[in-house]
């Protein structure tokens, strides 16, 4: 049995979901989207999935299309939340976990999905943050991810524009801001896996074809490292099968550069 990095990456995201959690992903997030369904079909059958921009509850799509507001994603959902119903639930803390990515991510897990170079004079205007600015403050826990760690431009010391809240902003930490959400719990990259301690990312695991020097070279924020064994076991057969069944079009692959897509394991 062999598998690709994109498959393992999705499995790593999926494992951040606890059984019985209420989980949401935003649009433009194929890896997170696939991961939610993988979790539901493997270790977290009791989770409740809110399907991205459709707000459908626990749908069973036959495939994941590359656009997030598509009828294919509603399949077999008993219920579709209204837009305001979902965002109210997120604001009052009824959603346990959300997946968040960013063009830039700092050591506190703050993300920039608005503009490289900031505003009003962006170097690159990114798409924008959707609802993350508010709901990153109140959702139970966040799984942050990027597939562009190796670029050296993604994990940065300071985000050029703070769109979504991590553990600490220039105006204070979550307690000082009055934010009930617990903030980023995991940061998953194509190089390895971070958790957060004292509100700062800490590297726990490297993918087997990655060295600490690779991560060090690619990370702009202070690199805290405390590696452990057993936190990123290889995908099980069931997990791989779920990834492939959920995502026959391979939309997850659109998040990765061509070099990363060539990585295979073991």
């Amino acid at each position, binding site marked *: 049995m062999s598998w690709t990095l994109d498959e393992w990456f999705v499995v790593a995201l999926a494992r951040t979901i606890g059984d019985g959690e209420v989980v949401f992903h935003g649009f433009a997030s194929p890896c997170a989207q696939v991961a939610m369904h993988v979790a539901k079909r493997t270790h977290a059958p009791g989770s409740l999935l809110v399907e991205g921009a459709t707000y459908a509850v626990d749908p069973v799509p036959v495939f994941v299309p*590359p656009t997030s507001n*598509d009828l294919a994603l509603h399949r077999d959902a008993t219920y579709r939340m209204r837009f305001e119903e979902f965002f109210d639930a997120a604001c009052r803390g009824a959603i346990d976990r959300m997946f968040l990515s960013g063009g830039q991510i700092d050591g506190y897990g703050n993300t920039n999905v608005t503009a490289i170079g900031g505003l009003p004079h962006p170097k690159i205007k990114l798409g924008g*943050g959707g609802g993350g600015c508010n709901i990153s403050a109140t959702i139970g826990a966040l799984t942050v991810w990027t597939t562009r760690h190796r670029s050296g431009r993604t994990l940065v010391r300071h985000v050029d524009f703070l769109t979504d809240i991590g553990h600490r902003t220039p105006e204070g930490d979550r307690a000082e801001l009055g934010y009930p959400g617990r903030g980023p719990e995991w940061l998953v990259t194509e190089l390895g896996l971070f958790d957060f301690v004292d509100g700062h990312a800490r590297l726990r695991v490297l993918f087997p074809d990655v060295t600490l020097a690779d991560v060090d070279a690619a990370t702009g924020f202070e690199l805290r490292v405390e590696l452990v064994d057993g936190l990123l076991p290889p995908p099980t057969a069931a997990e791989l099968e779920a990834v492939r069944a959920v995502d026959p079009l391979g939309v997850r692959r659109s998040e990765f550069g061509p070099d990363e897509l060539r990585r295979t394991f073991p």
Partner: protein
Amino acid sequence: MTGFHLGTDKRATLDEAAALVPSGATVALGGGLCARLPMALVRALVRADRNELHVVGSAHSIDVDLLIAAGAVGVCEESYVGFEQDLGLAPAYRRAAETGAVAVRESCCVTVLTQLRAAEMGLSFLPVRGVKGTDMEALHPEYRRVRCPFTGDELVAVPPLAPDVALLHAPIGDAAGNLHLDQPYVLDERFAHASRMVVTTVDRLVPTSEVVAAGVTIPGHTVAAVVEAPFGAHPASCYPGYAYDRPHLAGYIAAAAAGGSQLASYLDRYVHAGEDAYRAEIDVARLTSWSTCDTAWQELFR
């Protein structure tokens, strides 16, 4: 909206509908991402040479980008404009933001929702829980802080947002403007009630009884004009009619990214030529094939 729109016959042409949206208007765009976008109205506004529009909404794509590409937008206050991982950044939006041709007042879905609710509820402000600590506040000098009289917490206060007009598209509607939508409604309901008027296209104008049987999502008393425009959301999807037209979108993005004559020729061919010519270019068989089987549906996205 203050003041309902009474009357039983609000049928109009696309030109008449566009005439209800002056340059400089604050315009809410219905639908979301690449679904149920009011594209026929967007094209009509471009043909009518509108400019300095202030567009507001949640997550959008070619509707906003095409308006920007055509020079119709002054201020962009959406929470996202782009084509996700599938087709990437929005080329005209990106360029206009980077050159300063459009004022970027990016917002957050929850903030926009809250501002619409303030308008809908007749309130002069509402608080949001988040935003504090982010750079969104600096982008919006119109926000204020307010202290919760119960907890003493300082919250961000946002003003009501009552768009001059909400542009919607629905699969079916009647002459009075009663519309049926399938979920997700995105912000269409909130837009309808918070805006001064709804101007809408429908794929099919049908008898009231058919809308009632399907369920009235947007009541006619919010609607000032309704235009029958088959494939009015294309190249966005409007199920159950038609799916996302990926080749068309890719073609648009290439043209918009190139700018200049490539963009001009897209606009000539797909906008200035008018809706009859536009519809003649649609591969109807392909876009309606999604309902035949899951395999055909998947093929639309390969």
